[in-house]
C-alpha cells in the first residue's frame, strides 16, 4: 500500500512565510498588478526553494507519491487565469466550507488555452528534485465552472465544453512533462445541488483521460459522501483512481458505499482528517484501512489524507502525514488487509 498526499500544503511555520521576502521586494518595486507576481523572477525562485522544502518534508515523512509542492501566488485559480483567453480572475468566493477564499473565474468570452498553466512548471521543478513519482493536484473543470461568473457570450454549455478542452490539454501537457499521476479535485460534485450534474463530470473525465492515456487520472471527491454516484463513477472510461473521504461524518457512508466496488482502479483512501487537528492514532488508521481493504485489494489502495493539508497548521499537517505513513506501513506489514 503506497502513501500519497492529496493537495496543497501549509507553508507558514511560526510566522515565517517562505515567499514573504520576495513578495515584499516585488511590492517595493512598485508592482502594479497582482498578475505581475506570476512572472517575477525573485518570486519564482522563492517558489522553487519552497518546493524543495515541501518535497523533502514529504519524503521525510514517508510519502511514496508526493505532490508537486506547488505554492500558488494568491491561489491556484488566480494563478492559472493569465494562461487562458476568455477568463479573468475575478473577486473572492469562499470554497465549500473551508473558510478559504479563491478568485473565481469570470468568463468573458469562449475560454481558450494560451499556453501551459503553472502546474506544468511546478511539476518540472518537482521532478528535478525527486526520483519519486510526483502527483500534480488540480481543481477540475466542473469546480471552476460551478464557481465561475458565466455571463459571457459563450453560453453555459459552451463554456463548460471549453473548460474540458482546456483541462484535457493541460493534463496532456502534464503527461508529456513526465508525470504518472494527475489528481483532479471535483469535491463540489458531492454537494446535493451539484450531484445532478454528474453526467457533465462523467463526460469531462472520459475526455480528459482520453487526452492522456498513459497516466493514472485520479478523481478526488473529498468532504462528502459518494453514495449512489460510486457505481457510475467506477464505470468511467479511462478513470484510473478515485479519491474518497473516510474521515469524520463521511467515514460510515463511504465505507458502506464501497460494497459495490468491483473495479480495478485505485482507491485513494482519505484516512486521516485534513480538516481537524486531532492526530489519528495508529489503531484508528488501521481500523479504517481494514474496513477499506475488505472491499478494495490493498495493492489497489493509496493511503492519503482526506484532502489537501493546507487547511491545517504546518506542524499538524506534517505530523498527520507522518502518522499516516507509519500506520499504513505497519498495517501492510501486519497482513491485516489479507485477513479482512
Amino acid at each position: 500500500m503506497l502513501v500519497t498526499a492529496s493537495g496543497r500544503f501549509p507553508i507558514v511555520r511560526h510566522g515565517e512565510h517562505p515567499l514573504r521576502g520576495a513578495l515584499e521586494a516585488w511590492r517595493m518595486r512598485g508592482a502594479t498588478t497582482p498578475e505581475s507576481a506570476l512572472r517575477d523572477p525573485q518570486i519564482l525562485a522563492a517558489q522553487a526553494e519552497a518546493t524543495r522544502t515541501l518535497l523533502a518534508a514529504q519524503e521525510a515523512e514517508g510519502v511514496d507519491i508526493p505532490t508537486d509542492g506547488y505554492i500558488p501566488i494568491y491561489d491556484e485559480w488566480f494563478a492559472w487565469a493569465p494562461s487562458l483567453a476568455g477568463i479573468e480572475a475575478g473577486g473572492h468566493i469562499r470554497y465549500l466550507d473551508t473558510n478559504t477564499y479563491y478568485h473565481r473565474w469570470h468568463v468573458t468570452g469562449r475560454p481558450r488555452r494560451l499556453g501551459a498553466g503553472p502546474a506544468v512548471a511546478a511539476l518540472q521543478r518537482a521532478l528535478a528534485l525527486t526520483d519519486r513519482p510526483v502527483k500534480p493536484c488540480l481543481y477540475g473543470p466542473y469546480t471552476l465552472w460551478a464557481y465561475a461568473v458565466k455571463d459571457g457570450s459563450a453560453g453555459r454549455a459552451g463554456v463548460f465544453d471549453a473548460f474540458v478542452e482546456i483541462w484535457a490539454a493541460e493534463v496532456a501537457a502534464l503527461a508529456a512533462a513526465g508525470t504518472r499521476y494527475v489528481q483532479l479535485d471535483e469535491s463540489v460534485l458531492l454537494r446535493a445541488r451539484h450531484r445532478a450534474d454528474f453526467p457533465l463530470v462523467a463526460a469531462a473525465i472520459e475526455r480528459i483521460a482520453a487526452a492522456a492515456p498513459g497516466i493514472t487520472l485520479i478523481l478526488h471527491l473529498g468532504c462528502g459522501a459518494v453514495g449512489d454516484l460510486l457505481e457510475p463513477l467506477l464505470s468511467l472510461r479511462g478513470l484510473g483512481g478515485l479519491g474518497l473521504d473516510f474521515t469524520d461524518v463521511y467515514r460510515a457512508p463511504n465505507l458502506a458505499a464501497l460494497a459495490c466496488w468491483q473495479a480495478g482502479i485505485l482507491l485513494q483512501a482519505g484516512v486521516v482528517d485534513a480538516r481537524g487537528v486531532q492526530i489519528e492514532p495508529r489503531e484508528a488508521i488501521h481500523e479504517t484501512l481494514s474496513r477499506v481493504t475488505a472491499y478494495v485489494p490493498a495493492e489497489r489502495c493509496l493511503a492519503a489524507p482526506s484532502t489537501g493539508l493546507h487547511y491545517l497548521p504546518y506542524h499538524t499537517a506534517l505530523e498527520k502525514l507522518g502518522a499516516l505513513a507509519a500506520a499504513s506501513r505497519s498495517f501492510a506489514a501486519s497482513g491485516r488487509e489479507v485477513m479482512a
Partner: protein
Amino acid sequence: MIALPLLPVSGIGSLPKPPALVKAEMAPMHEQECDALQAMREAAVADWLAIQEEAGMDLVVDGEQYRRSMITYFLEGWGCAELDPDPVWVMDNMYSQRGVIVRAAARPRPLLTDWYRFVGARTHLPAKLTLTGPYTLRDWAFDRYYASRPAAVLALAEYVREEAQALAAAGVRYLQIDEPAFVTRYDQPEELDLAIAALRRAVEGLPSTMTILTHMCYGAFHEVYPRMLDLPARVFCLELAHASPETLDVLLRYPFPADRVLGWGVVDAMDPRVEAVEEIEARIRLALTYVRPEQLWLNPDCGLQALPREQAIAKLRNLVAAARNVRRQCST
C-alpha cells in the same frame, strides 16, 4: 439619540490596523507589553472613529482594532481556546492563526462593553457593535473539546448571548452578529437549522429597542435565500457589490420582506481599486430595484481590514458621497 437618515451608511466591522499595532500583536506573547498594546489599540479605535465622522458615516464601528481575528478574539477572551502557533492560509497571501477549542469557557465575561463605552465617549454618532455568531465561531476554529459540532455551536451560543445581554445593558442600540459561515453548508438542512437555532438562542431576551443585524459574505447567497430570513435579524448586511446573476434572480423571485432591511454591499472590500462615486451610485440604484429606499442600508461588502489604509478611507468617502447623491434623488 440621532435618527438614521434614508440609506444610512456604515462599515461592516474591521478596518485596517496601523502597521505598528500589527507588528506588536505578532510579537511572541512573552514579549508583548499589555499596557502598551492596549494604548495602541485605543489610539487606533479613536483614529478610525474620527475618520468615520469626517467621512460622514451615519453609524460608526470601532474597526475591531483590538481583535487579532473575529474568531480568536472571542474564543481566547472567553478562555475556551488556545492559538495554534502556525497560521493557516485564508486567501491570497493572507494567513491567520486559528483557535483550537480545548475547554468550556473558563471566564465567560463580557469582552465588548468596555469598548462600547470607549467608543461612546469619543463620538456623538450612533455606534454599531459587532459580535461573531456561534455557528461561525465553531466553524472557523478547530475543536478538541466538544463531542459534536452541535454541542459546540450551542455552547458558544450561550457565551454570545451573555455578551449580547451585557451590551444591551450597556445601552447598545445596534448589534451586528456576523454569521458568514451560514452560507457554507447550504445544502445540509440540519446545519442551517443549527445555525438558526443557535442565533435565536443568542439573541433571546434582547430588548426590542435594539436593532439586530447580521452579516454574510463571499458565499452563494442564492443557495440560502430565503431560508436565511429565519435568522433572527432585522438587517441583513450582504456582500453584493458584485452580486451574482443567481442572487439577483432569487431576489426577484422571492422579494425581500417589507419588514426587513437589506444592507447592500456596494464597495468591494478586497480590491484596492477605489470605486468612483458614480460606480457606487450605480450599485445603489441597482439595489433600489430590489428594495424600497426605506429598506436599504449601505455598507462595504465586508470589513476593510485587508486594504491599505488610504484606499479604505477613500472607499468610505466615496461610499458616503454616493449615498448622499442617491439620497437627494430619492427625496426629490
